């Protein structure tokens, strides 16, 4: 029986009214869409003899979340409909996946009947429910440990908002921002002396520049140029003072610049290093999933955003706040009324500035998407140039290019035009304040109630309040961007790998190589089992072939064995030890894979072969290459084993890559060898030769060989047939042929194909 405490009281009582009591409920599910495609709260419960569906809507908040959560449930449940099905008359439960919704249905009294719909949001829950219901219908009752549960909480329990990734349970809204900052400060604390110097030099630059208007104004006009002033006639003295102040200011800002660039490089380096090391710790699934794949690309930019905020943004914020406060204070002390006049245009300026920023935001976002689509087109055409040429599509591509390029240029033009037309206007607005000050101040000077020098000082300071104002309007955006970046960075740092090494890993020192797949089931996605109840064993030293159509799940088997993913049900053992308990190091040391896709890293062929065993000598590499029949083509290159391959260098053909990959595996000399279509891209002659090497190599090793060409598998001790995720057949070549099943058919098809081209 499932934990019914998740069902709200009013729902329980609604069922109770119809004779379904809480302690009879074995399974339940809350769906979010009714049979008419309307969002609703649908409760489906199953007892040992009834399946009941209650549809309605919780009336608590004005809005119902479509996320299928149990949040904010109220006493008010407005019922729309209720249906009950006799469990005995129900059979063949199934789900249809449509484009944006699903239908849960079953055969009821001989007739297919839709029971409820659901949105994609809860499809995993529905599929688990489906399995449970099937099980219940079959057995009549289920004990708690027979019920598959899903622990996937879709919403944050704190704020009720949707998790952006339920697996990681990280709510961006509820994330403690101060905590984030604290964690982040670790990166910066290492450089606190430098940070201090940076801030001090900034303060110095600012105070020196605040001093200048005073010297240029009051001192110059009232003391030097005015008869009777304390420094009357000492013009050289004042000029020297100005020069000295300027000089000091230049020194301070140079120090600031140098220090900042030093920390900058280091902090960014630290962040990237930390992120990268935690990325490599993550499971394979993290990289292939749609949801997280995008995270990777942003790491680079994010480190920069964080840096800019802390090394540029934060110090400037402090400076600007201080500057603004001090200067406003000075201005008020000089003349409060005049200060008021100076601030008249400030609100207008602020409103305008904000508006302009928003406008630019939009334009930059558009510009960004135009640039991206332009760039991707260019990459697309250049990578596919062979196809473009082969189909003589140069002109069409040129047109496509021209259109995107024009769009992009147009968007750049718009931004440029706006940029150069709007800022002079804003400047003009600022100057309106200036004009008022000039007029009012000039009048006061003429009246004799104010010194000219003082007015000049005032005007000088007035020019200095706009910069902080402009900065303040931008800092909030900067802050948002930075928090955003921090959040993404920590999201990666905090991700828990789906496949984790056991806490007390067992070592696999000298493995024999017995492999057992025992009732293994697995699905990349809960809605579909990629592998279903696979059960076979390979004795140490044996060779087992795996055959099946493309997409049948053959490579998935291998992914499970080397723990790129973990099995959902059943277990895989090597020498009787569950692979989940074996240390990663030992597991990967004992298994080598030659797969259909080979990746060559940038470097020499030598380095690439040696990748599997860095301590291998040159002779060993050469011998491995020879055994893999790679030597014959490598030696033809001018630089032989030291030919550079990988991005931007010599590109090798598919067959050549595979041979290098085989050499890698041979060099590693593992106890378990997996050949995943290892020879698929080779010509028949080469394949023969390599096959010989592989056959020799597989002696004394456990070998799993995945192949399309059945001829490759002739020597296998036994053959596993995988068909649509299931394992219909398992046995020797002869056994399977006499069985006249899937293998027999495949074999005949291939034989026929050979016959048709004259090979018997």
């Amino acid at each position: 029986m499932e934990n019914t405490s998740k069902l709200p009281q009013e729902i329980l009582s609604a069922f109770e009214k119809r004779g379904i009591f809480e302690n009879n409920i074995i399974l339940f599910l809350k769906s979010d869409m009714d049979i008419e495609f309307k969002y609703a709260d649908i409760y489906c419960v199953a007892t040992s003899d009834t399946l009941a569906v209650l549809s309605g809507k919780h009336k608590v908040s004005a809005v119902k979340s479509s996320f299928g959560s149990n949040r904010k449930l109220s006493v008010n449940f407005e019922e729309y409909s209720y249906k009950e099905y006799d469990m005995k008359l129900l059979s063949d439960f199934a789900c249809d996946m449509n484009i944006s919704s699903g239908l849960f249905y079953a055969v009821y009294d001989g007739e297919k009947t839709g029971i409820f719909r659901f949105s994609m949001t809860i499809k995993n829950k529905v599929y688990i429910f489906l399995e449970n219901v099937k099980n219940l219908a079959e057995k009549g009752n289920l004990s708690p440990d027979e019920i598959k549960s899903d622990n996937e909480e879709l919403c944050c329990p704190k704020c009720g908002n949707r998790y952006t990734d339920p697996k990681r349970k990280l709510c961006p809204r509820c994330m403690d921002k101060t905590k984030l900052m604290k964690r982040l400060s670790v990166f910066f604390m290492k450089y606190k002396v430098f940070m201090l110097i940076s801030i001090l030099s900034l303060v110095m630059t600012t105070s020196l520049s605040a001093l200048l208007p005073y010297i240029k104004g009051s001192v110059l006009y009232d003391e030097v140029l005015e008869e009777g002033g304390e420094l009357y006639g000492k013009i050289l003295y004042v000029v020297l003072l100005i020069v000295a102040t300027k000089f000091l200011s230049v020194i301070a800002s140079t120090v600031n610049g140098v220090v900042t660039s030093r920390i900058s490089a280091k902090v960014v380096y630290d962040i990237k290093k930390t992120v990268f090391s935690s990325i490599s710790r993550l499971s394979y699934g993290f990289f292939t999933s749609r949801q997280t794949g995008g995270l990777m690309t942003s790491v680079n930019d994010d480190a920069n955003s964080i840096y800019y905020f802390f090394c540029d943004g934060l110090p400037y914020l402090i400076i600007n706040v201080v500057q603004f406060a001090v200067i406003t204070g000075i201005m008020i002390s000089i003349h409060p009324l005049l200060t008021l006049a100076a601030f008249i245009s400030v609100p207008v300026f602020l409103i305008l500035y904000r508006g302009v920023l928003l406008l630019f935001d939009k334009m930059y976002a558009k510009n960004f998407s135009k640039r991206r689509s332009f760039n991707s087109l260019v990459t697309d055409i250049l990578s596919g140039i062979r196809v473009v040429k082969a189909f003589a599509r140069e002109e069409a591509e040129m047109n496509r290019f021209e259109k995107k390029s024009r769009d992009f240029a147009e968007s750049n033009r718009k931004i440029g035009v706006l940029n150069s037309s709007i800022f002079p206007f804003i400047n003009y607005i600022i100057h309106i304040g200036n004009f008022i000050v000039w007029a009012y101040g000039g009048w006061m000077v003429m009246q004799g109630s104010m010194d000219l020098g003082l007015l000049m000082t005032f005007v000088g300071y007035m020019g200095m309040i706009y910069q902080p104002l402009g900065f303040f309007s931008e800092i909030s955006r900067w802050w948002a961007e930075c928090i955003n970046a921090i959040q993404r960075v920590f999201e990666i740092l905090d991700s828990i790998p789906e496949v984790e090494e056991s806490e007390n890993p067992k070592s696999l020192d000298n493995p024999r190589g017995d492999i057992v797949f025992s009732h293994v089931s697995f699905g990349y996605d809960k809605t579909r089992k990629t592998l279903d109840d696979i059960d076979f064993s390979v004795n140490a030293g044996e060779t087992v072939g795996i055959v099946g159509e493309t997409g049948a799940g053959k490579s998935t088997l291998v992914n499970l064995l080397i723990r790129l993913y973990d099995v959902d049900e059943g277990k895989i053992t090597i020498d009787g030890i569950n692979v989940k308990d074996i240390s990663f190091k030992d597991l990967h040391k004992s298994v080598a894979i030659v797969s259909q896709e080979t990746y060559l890293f940038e470097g020499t062929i030598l380095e690439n072969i040696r990748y599997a065993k860095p301590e291998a000598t040159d002779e060993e590499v050469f011998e491995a290459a020879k055994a893999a029949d790679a030597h014959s083509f490598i030696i033809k290159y001018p630089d032989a084993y030291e030919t550079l391959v990988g991005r931007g260098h010599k590109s090798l053909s598919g067959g050549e890559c595979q041979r290098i990959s085989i050499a890698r595996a041979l060099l590693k000399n593992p106890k378990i060898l997996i050949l995943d279509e290892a020879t698929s891209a080779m010509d028949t002659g080469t394949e023969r030769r390599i096959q010989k090497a592989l056959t020799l190599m597989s002696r004394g090793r456990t070998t799993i060989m995945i192949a399309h060409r059945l001829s490759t598998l002739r020597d296998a001790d036994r053959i596993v047939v995988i068909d649509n995720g299931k394992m219909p057949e398992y046995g020797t070549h002869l056994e399977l042929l006499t069985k006249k099943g899937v293998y027999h058919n495949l074999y005949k098809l291939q034989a026929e194909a050979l016959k048709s081209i004259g090979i018997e």
Partner: protein
Amino acid sequence: MNEMLNKNKIGDNTSFTDIVDIVYLTPENSEFSVTKNGFLMLVSSEDVKPERILGQEENSDDSAPSIKPGEAPPHGPGPGGAKPPFEGNGKGHRGHGRKPPADIKYTADGRRDYGRVLLHRAFPFDKPDNIISVQQEDGFEIGIIRNIHDFDEKTVKILEDNLEKKYYVPEIIKIISAKDKFGFVYFKCDTDSGICEFVVRNPFGSIIRIDENHIFIIDIDGNRYSIKDLSKLDKKSYRKIELYV
């Protein structure tokens, strides 16, 4: 080999359409119906007989599913009818995909009863009524409907209803709010299915433009929401989404 080439006249100016065999479902060979609970059913004449790649004639030992050179294609006119099976040509044809279910049921009058079938549009945006793949529940393709309007009105209604359900996507009537938080956009919208909330990751990649005014929004779970005509959206709503389209 040459023999085969000649047979199929590849050497001539024949188009490849002459050598490929497609099972078209027409009013003559197929009858669609719908159960009282809205499930689509198909009964076809014997000549709608998609060839299975594997084990199709499992009871006979010496059957060779592939076409041998020089041999007549495996499917001649069906046992029940004199007319050639599928629109115009009578060559062998293949369904795609996997093995078929074990047995084919027949109706009392000797027609093939495929039971429940599913429809899938080949061009869901451009030509929603043309080239509809008709599949069995396991995804095996039985044949193609060239254009649903080839059928009589009643059938058209049945097919349209079925397609509509399969392709149902809530239509956004009003965007109540769209908040950008940490790279995700939290939408709250009024749709023809009722009010809903959803989250979109990377709006520039998840909002897909079908044509000038028609867009799709795909949320983090893969749910789709459509706006058929952006220009008809009220101003406030439009402003909330403008940035991303």
